[in-house]
């Protein structure tokens, strides 16, 4: 370890020159994409019940740690190091050979490109959590994230962006419609199925405990998504501007259409719906952002509202407890976006001409890419979860679900009022002893008076 460490510490690979303007933008874009993960935490966290808010937030926040480390160690290499059709090589394991010069990705430092891609890996994994909130064991979730990011995310990223078979085929995915959203959406569907429904699902109304957090998350997601899409140009150029404009205008259209459907159906425009509409528009434009015209983006955003709207409407009537509708929003939105890229893309704006411009073959390639990613993600996610289940139970018991995962997994409350809380001095509860039981027997009056007054 020591020698490896020191030797890899010592290596700074050279590269082509970098450009300050492009680097400035990629620095910011990377920070913006990282911000999306906490933002997602709030988007999701607002939608669960009070007793699970911290657990839901932690599912996003912990992804930054676990997936970040996995990415440095092996994920990046498997996705982007020179390799074959299916997976990258091991040249950049532990970030060996990653320096500060430019390269095939552009005139920006290689290490920064690693960071940029890391933030994509992180958010993709965090997206899945919406399907398993309020019941999955946190330990199992941490293990799942580490494995999935390496076994599923890295290869799929390689297929599309690392020079793998989908790239060679000519399928278009500007910023991750398939790699991120179809991938996470299908994994979410599968995970919800493997985990099973929450005990109260379909019996009780499980309401968003804080709709303002849903909106906060959506606002910050939109902000961060400019880094996601316009950053994917990997330069501060016209393509970045196009991707930016499309990331602004497509969700505008989705939001307007979503509110109109809501109005038509309910005569009321829901706020959680508006937040969802924004996210769906962002998802749908993601694969197309640098390939379609702004007016095309407006049309794409408007059209994309429908499938996800009705998928979300339909889902609660099924047995599928994809609790926060990850599949309906990201899976469906990603698929629609990927397919519509095959319709609206235009060579003159930087893509390949799509259906609307006389080239139906692009649509076929897009469909193939969607299917391939969905199939691999689905199968691999089942395998990972079933494998994990052999080692550790995947979900909490019904009683623990009732107590809420904030208490059970984290030993905290989101909004503690402190009434009736009594300090326990460390000496009273031996370290490690009561532990996960969370519950100790009732306090005698001694318990109360034993609080050491003279600290």
């Amino acid at each position, binding site marked *: 370890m020591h020698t490896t460490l020191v030797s890899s510490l010592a290596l700074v690979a050279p590269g082509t020159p970098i450009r300050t303007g492009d680097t400035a933008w990629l620095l910011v874009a990377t920070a913006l994409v990282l911000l999306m993960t906490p933002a997602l935490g709030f988007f999701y966290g607002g939608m669960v019940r009070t007793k699970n808010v911290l657990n839901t937030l932690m599912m996003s926040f912990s992804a930054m740690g676990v997936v970040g480390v996995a990415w440095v160690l092996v994920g990046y290499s498997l996705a982007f190091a020179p390799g074959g059709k299916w997976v990258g090589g091991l040249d950049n394991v532990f970030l060996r050979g990653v320096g500060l010069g430019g390269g095939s990705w552009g005139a920006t430092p290689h290490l920064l490109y690693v960071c940029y891609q890391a933030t994509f890996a992180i958010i993709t994994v965090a997206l899945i959590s919406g399907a398993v909130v309020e019941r999955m064991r946190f330990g199992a979730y941490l293990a799942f994230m580490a494995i999935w990011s390496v076994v599923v995310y890295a290869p799929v990223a390689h297929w599309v962006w690392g020079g793998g078979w989908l790239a060679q085929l000519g399928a278009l995915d500007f910023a991750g419609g398939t790699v991120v959203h179809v991938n996470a959406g299908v994994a979410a569907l599968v995970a919800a199925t493997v985990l099973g429904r929450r005990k109260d699902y379909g019996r009780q109304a499980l309401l968003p405990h804080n709709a303002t957090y849903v909106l906060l998350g959506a606002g910050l997601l939109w902000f961060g998504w400019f880094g996601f899409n316009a950053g994917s140009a990997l330069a501060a150029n016209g393509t970045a501007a196009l991707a930016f404009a499309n990331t602004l205008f497509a969700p505008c259209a989705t939001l307007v259409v979503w509110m109109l459907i809501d109005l038509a159906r309910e005569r009321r425009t829901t706020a959680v719906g508006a937040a969802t509409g924004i996210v769906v528009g962002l998802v749908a434009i993601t694969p197309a952002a640098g390939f379609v015209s702004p007016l095309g983006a407006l049309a794409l955003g408007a059209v994309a509202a429908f499938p996800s709207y009705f998928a979300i409407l339909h889902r609660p009537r099924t047995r599928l407890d994809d609790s926060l509708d990850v599949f309906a929003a990201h899976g469906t939105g990603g698929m629609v976006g990927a397919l519509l890229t095959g319709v609206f893309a235009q060579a003159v704006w930087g893509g390949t001409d799509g259906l609307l411009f006389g080239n139906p073959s692009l649509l076929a390639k897009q469909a193939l890419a969607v299917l391939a990613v969905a199939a691999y993600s689905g199968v691999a996610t089942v395998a990972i979860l079933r494998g994990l289940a052999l080692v550790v139970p995947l979900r909490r018991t019904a009683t623990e679900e009732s107590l809420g995962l904030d208490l059970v997994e984290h030993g905290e409350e989101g909004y503690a009022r402190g009434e*009736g809380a*009594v300090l326990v001095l460390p000496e009273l509860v031996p370290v490690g002893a009561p532990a996960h039981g*969370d*519950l100790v*027997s009732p306090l005698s009056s001694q318990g109360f008076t034993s609080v050491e007054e003279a600290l």
Partner: protein
Amino acid sequence: MKLIVAVIRQEKLREVLEALFRAEVRGVTVSGVQGHGGELERVETYRGTRVKMELQEKVRLEIGVSEPFVERTVAAILRSARTGEVGDGKLFVLPLDKVYRIRTGEEDEAAVTPAPVAMDELLGI
């Protein structure tokens, strides 16, 4: 006239309400309370400080009923709120001197009998 006060588990609220409606008790006032009894306590940790939460979240029901309804109301609650685990709560029956329906000023029995108007609307659901 009696005032029935019950402290029950949060997660039982829906079942108890259903049982009450089946027992044709339509009026009830509910509030969130915290209770201490024989239940186990939660331990939480904040930055290395451990705290014991002595109070559990409970729900309190308050129902004014006329004499003929007392027994079935009590029975409905006792049946529907029970899990058998420590912490199911308590039910108190208090004597009541008088009840008024604020809307009409009606007193006692009349005050706690559901307004007939509501029945028509039921069909409209």
